[in-house]
């Protein structure tokens, strides 16, 4: 009897917390695109941005009459911030839902898992992450996010202009940290920068002052910590608390309003590389991207009460790239679609102007990245 009582309570807990899932119904035969986002797990906070952005873009395209008279449909799955689940849902999209292309996901390992499926099943896949696409092996994979190289090169260019030559690295343990560390060492000589020291930290650790204190002895003029979100804010805040009043460079993943909130009371210069979408007001009027960004932001503001950000922009552009290719080659054939995407030239997106080729699956160029800093809770452009 007691056990029965427990059962009732457990069931009611679930009922209370669960709403009724939305049931989607489609009448036409649309072009199906798969979307894979980290909606739960440690990357979930950015997965939402990506999902919202891409869903809105699909909605806008459909409102404008679709493509070749057909609608687009975005089938979204959660990769749970795990490569295995990413691979599984990609598989599901490809073979069960029969999508003609995939977009999405966030971290390098999940991208790798999804890309592997895209290649195997010859489904064009547009990743939005730091994953570096090697067109020779990743024939079907593209990346609408700026190359991670840009997020290091551009700030280094800025450092050079400011006479900063000594940079210390404080990298999170994980894919981002590995990538950032490698790129920093790669580009430092080019911009006359010396890496004075390198430390690692666990993003879940409550305290990173030990690493910072160690780096401080090396006399750096700036700290480069290639991390995103809370850890980035933690680095900045800890530096401020230790009285290290030197610039801290964090990853381009931070160019979103959430990060502004996290560092609202930190008083050291925080440098964030970012695409145009992060600070549209600073773009000159003659820039073709400005229109695209402002138009989309308006719709985004209307629907979600906030403008799009750098994360959503990647996915919006990913949808756009597929849509553009579909207009050229109205096909469900993966090889043909891949070919069309690879031939895309001069596509004006929110992140820049995409020019793909058989040797470049990233499409954007170094100048598409800017360097921002946080000033009075707002973005300010340091390097355009």
């Amino acid at each position, binding site marked *: 009897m007691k*056990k029965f009582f427990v059962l009732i309570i457990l069931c009611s807990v679930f009922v209370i917390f669960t709403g009724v899932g939305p049931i989607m119904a489609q009448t036409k035969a649309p072009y199906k695109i798969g979307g894979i986002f980290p909606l739960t797990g440690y990357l979930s906070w950015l997965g939402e941005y990506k999902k919202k952005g891409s869903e809105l873009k699909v909605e806008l395209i459909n409102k404008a009459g679709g493509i070749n008279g057909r609608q687009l449909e975005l089938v979204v799955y959660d990769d749970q911030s795990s490569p295995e689940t990413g691979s599984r849902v990609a598989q599901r999209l490809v073979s069960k839902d029969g999508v003609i292309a995939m977009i999405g996901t966030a971290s390098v390992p999940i991208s790798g898992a999804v890309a592997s499926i895209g290649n195997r099943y010859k489904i064009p896949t547009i990743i939005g992450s730091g994953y570096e696409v090697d067109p020779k092996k990743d024939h079907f994979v593209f990346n609408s996010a700026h190359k991670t190289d840009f997020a290091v090169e551009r700030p280094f260019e800025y450092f050079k202009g400011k006479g900063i030559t000594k940079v210390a690295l404080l990298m999170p343990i994980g894919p981002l940290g590995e990538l950032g560390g490698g790129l920093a060492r790669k580009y430092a000589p080019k911009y006359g920068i010396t890496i004075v020291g390198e430390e690692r*930290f666990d993003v879940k650790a409550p305290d*990173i*002052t*030990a690493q910072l*204190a*160690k780096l401080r002895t090396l006399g750096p003029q700036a700290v480069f910590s290639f991390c995103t979100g809370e850890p980035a804010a933690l680095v900045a805040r800890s530096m401020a608390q230790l009285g290290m009043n030197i610039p801290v460079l964090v990853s381009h993943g931070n160019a979103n309003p959430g990060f502004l909130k996290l560092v609202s009371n930190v008083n050291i210069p925080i440098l964030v590389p970012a695409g145009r979408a992060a600070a549209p007001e600073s773009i000159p009027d003659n820039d073709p991207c400005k229109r695209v960004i402002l138009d989309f932001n308006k719709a985004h503001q209307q629907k979600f009460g906030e403008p799009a950000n750098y994360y959503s922009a990647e996915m919006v552009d990913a949808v756009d790239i597929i849509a553009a290719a579909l207009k050229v080659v109205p096909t469900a054939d993966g090889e043909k679609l891949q070919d069309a995407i690879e031939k895309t030239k001069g596509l004006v997106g929110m992140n820049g102007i995409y020019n793909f080729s058989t040797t470049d699956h990233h499409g954007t160029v170094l100048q598409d990245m800017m360097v921002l800093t946080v000033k009075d809770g707002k973005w300010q452009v340091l390097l355009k």
Partner: protein
Amino acid sequence: MTDFSHIVQFFFSGLTSGSMYALIAVSLVIVYKVSLLICFAQGEFFVIGALAMVTLVSKGLPMPLAFVLSILISTVLGALVQRMLIKPIQNAGIGNLIVMTIAISLTLRGAALLVWGKESHILKPFSSGAPIPVLGATLQPQVLWIISITIVVLIMIWIFFEKTKLGIAMRACAENRLGASLMGISTDKAALLAWAWGSGIGALAGMAVAPLLFMQYGSGVMPMVKGFIAVSIGGLSSIVGSVVAGLLLGTVEAYTIGLISSKFSDTIVFSLLMVVLIFKPSGLFGKG
């Protein structure tokens, strides 16, 4: 290349994490002593306490009131969990109990996700103020709060288990079930109380470090693992041992990061732990 001020800074860093590990470890030990069960959901009380306080503060409640209310919420939650979920299967094997606490942890984390969403929440420090320079290193005021909360909690535990009739009876319960019932406390009631204490202290730990961390529904996993390490080193049933082990763990971590390798600090810490377990199977401070 490291001078004295860094050694001090590493020490503060270790003290901060160490106090947090120690509090979690104590909450685990209290439950273990009475019900011979390590609760793998302790990390969730840590998170729920902190997030409840964030919410209450943002609703405009004064800090102290929010503090007390959050502890109360976790305590009641812990007691409810014990009554509803642990008690019905308390005679099952240890494997079942471990998996049950894992199930509770999944459920609470799932509920926290729905209540507080996926984003991180920040709690403002208990007192404003600039970092304090000490011997060339810097100390954040919140760290002083964490340390004093740890001390106060330990004193409270000491008073409760050594000086109050109820506490003494509970302790007796841990050692001898029959003896305890003679002292007027049933093992049932003792377990319930232990859970209440445990979840309350877990929540307290979460609230104390929340201003240093960014709290999110999944933030409880790491503290739980670290607390578990501390009790394994300190001995499952030794409160003093677990406090010392928690502080030791934090300090060793900080010095490993600072002096040896931040890349392999976790590898080193876990390897040390295995060595300790193999050569001292019931912890450094455990008996028998």
